[in-house]
């Protein structure tokens, strides 16, 4: 959409004010995320840009909060080791990875079933399988808290993993179903007629084609689990710290700039994940012959 050379002054004003408005909206979307990056290197114990910091004075810049994040902090001369953040990181990855694997396996198989032309009650089933994504987290957390405490799953890693798997599956179902639209079922027939059994057909023919969808669904499931705090708070025990839970605690009790360091790391992680998913999506579209306009 470019302005033609014969545009009137009014049209020009309209066009440029539209562009200005749009850039302001993009700024509104993106600025808050990047504002925390420099601040995590500030020596100040508050979330603010001090004058010294802005003037680039060396004393005002520091890596002390990063040191504290990885577990080394010094008060005066004594070194105190608090490894809550590292414990949280380990737990987050542990829960996230297992939940992702489970969600990806369950979701992919279900998406294969849902994409078959003979699937009965498809809309209802789809609505049920997507519902964990739609129901507010606080309601999910309350329900799981009541039910899991009845069957002894609260305060266990198993309970958290099951909960996060349930929350992650809708993303896998959606992305894999999307990849399967336009899937040429003749490929399956060809494979079977050439003597491959079901498993071989799945791993050698179907899987390579839907892999981009499976991986991006898995990444969505992972980030969902990795970012989830409400269920962890109600279903998990006090000792079961994850990164978001520790951030939550940090925001509610001691507003420590370590949060900003962790936030910076998480932004880096999300940029990495976003890049991966975008590359996969384009590859998938190319593979399936969908042209980009």
């Amino acid at each position, binding site marked *: *959409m470019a302005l033609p050379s014969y545009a009137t002054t009014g*049209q020009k004003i309209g066009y440029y004010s*539209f*562009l200005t408005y749009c850039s302001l*909206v*993009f700024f*509104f*979307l*993106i600025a*808050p*995320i990047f*504002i*925390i990056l420099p601040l995590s290197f500030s020596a100040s114990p*508050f*979330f*603010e840009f001090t004058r010294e910091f802005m003037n680039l004075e060396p004393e005002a810049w520091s890596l002390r909060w990063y040191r504290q994040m990885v577990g080394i902090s010094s008060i005066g001369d004594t070194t105190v080791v608090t490894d809550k953040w590292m414990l949280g990181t380990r737990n987050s990855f542990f829960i996230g990875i297992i939940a992702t694997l489970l969600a990806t396996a*369950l979701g992919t*198989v279900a998406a294969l*079933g*849902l994409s*078959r032309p*003979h699937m009965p009650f498809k*809309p209802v089933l*789809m*609505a*049920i*399988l*997507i*519902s*964990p994504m*739609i*129901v*507010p*987290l*606080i*309601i999910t957390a*309350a*329900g799981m*808290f*009541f*039910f899991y405490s*009845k069957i002894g799953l609260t305060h266990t890693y198993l309970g958290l993993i099951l*909960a996060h*798997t*349930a929350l992650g*599956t809708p993303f896998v*179902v959606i992305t894999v179903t999307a990849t399967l639209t336009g899937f040429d079922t003749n490929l399956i027939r060809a494979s079977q007629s050439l003597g491959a059994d079901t498993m071989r057909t799945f791993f050698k023919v179907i899987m390579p084609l839907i892999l981009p969808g499976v991986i991006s669904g898995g990444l969505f499931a992972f*980030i969902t689990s990795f970012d989830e*705090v*409400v269920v962890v708070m*109600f279903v998990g025990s006090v000792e079961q710290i994850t990164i*978001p839970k520790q*951030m*939550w605690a940090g*925001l509610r009790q001691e507003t420590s700039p370590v949060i900003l360091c962790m*936030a910076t790391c998480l932004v880096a992680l*999300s940029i990495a994940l976003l890049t991966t998913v*975008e590359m996969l999506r384009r590859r998938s579209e190319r593979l399936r012959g969908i042209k*980009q*306009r």
Partner: protein
Amino acid sequence: MNQTVSGPILTSDGIPLKVSLKKAERINKIRAFLLVLPLLAFILITFLIPIGDMLARSIDDRQINTVFPKTFEVYKKWDRQDLPSEEVYKTMFFELKDSEGYSVGKASTRMNYSKSGWKSLLKKSKRKFKKIEEGPYKEKMIATDKRWGDPEYWKALGQMVDPTTMGYYLNAVDLKYDSNKNVVQQKENRRIYNKTWIKTFKVSILVTFFCLLLGYPISYLLATLPMKYSNLLMICVLLPFWTSLLVRTVAWMVMLQQKGVFNNLMVMAGLIADENRWQLMYNQTAVIIVMTQILLPFMVLPLYSVMKTISPTYMRAALNLGASPIHAFYKIYMPNSIPGVSAGCLLVFIIAIGYYITPELVGGKDGQMVGNWIAYHLKTTLNWGLCAALGAILLAVMTVLYWAYNKIVGIENIKLG
């Protein structure tokens, strides 16, 4: 070939083709269903049953009947006029005296919801009853505490005779049962939930409106720009989508607090004085600002995918036929983009209405929404019946919206970037 004319078509096994095809179809259906079954069972056990269990809790009122079962048996015979008979007092006396402290505590909490004062009365009486050896129990109980002689206390028990109650739902909309089981309004100072419901809807509608206001133009820009530019700008929309909710909330705290970036810039520009910086944090305004930024991608993605399908030739044709750009946009482009608008608005509203984390962190006192009250009753007051009732109402609203979304957009068309 004569066969085919006279009778149904047969397969080589001699079975009619129709039957054979149906059988094959059925096998295919079962196969497809078997693939979905593991996930369906998983979601049922880990997600749907827990939510059903919570819904059951919102009407469950058996807790107390298990602590004072005999009392409730004899209580039913009472005419609810004057004080109950000696028999009721006697059963109450023994059941309270012999009960465990833990279960009395739970029951008395429930009794306190019907009439405040029950909790302290039971606690005090359980201690004093140890000294009473023999009857008449009615007089001696009233002697230990005159509240035992107050018919209001006894009448309040009438609400709990049934194993189920609608009481929690009434509480969730600022109503309650009086001692004769009529529905009445809560006392003036205890009416908080209707206000909260209104506030929740207000905030959600405003957030949806602002998302549309900000999202529509940029979706239009993204849909009409050449691919190489729009892909780059799309990153700006998708990055917040992928960034942790807590990170974004922290970022807004940095921006909006009293000594935050926004206020600093305003002071530097000389627009406001240093001593009266704006209070942008910990109120409803903060909730609306932050939620708008967080939910904006959910508006842009469906809008973009619909706008992408609107051919630019429509607009050109309209302009060619003499329409002014504004008129052409209003008459041609807007009606075509309505499916995207409805999808985006519904999605944003559905997500906004159940929000909990952001209002909790940036909302302060006046930004609390229904989700926050659910959490409050879940972990602080432990009034789980009310917690479940609030949740159930919220869930009902959600279900209607979700159903509408599914009808209008189709849930399988949901966009994730």
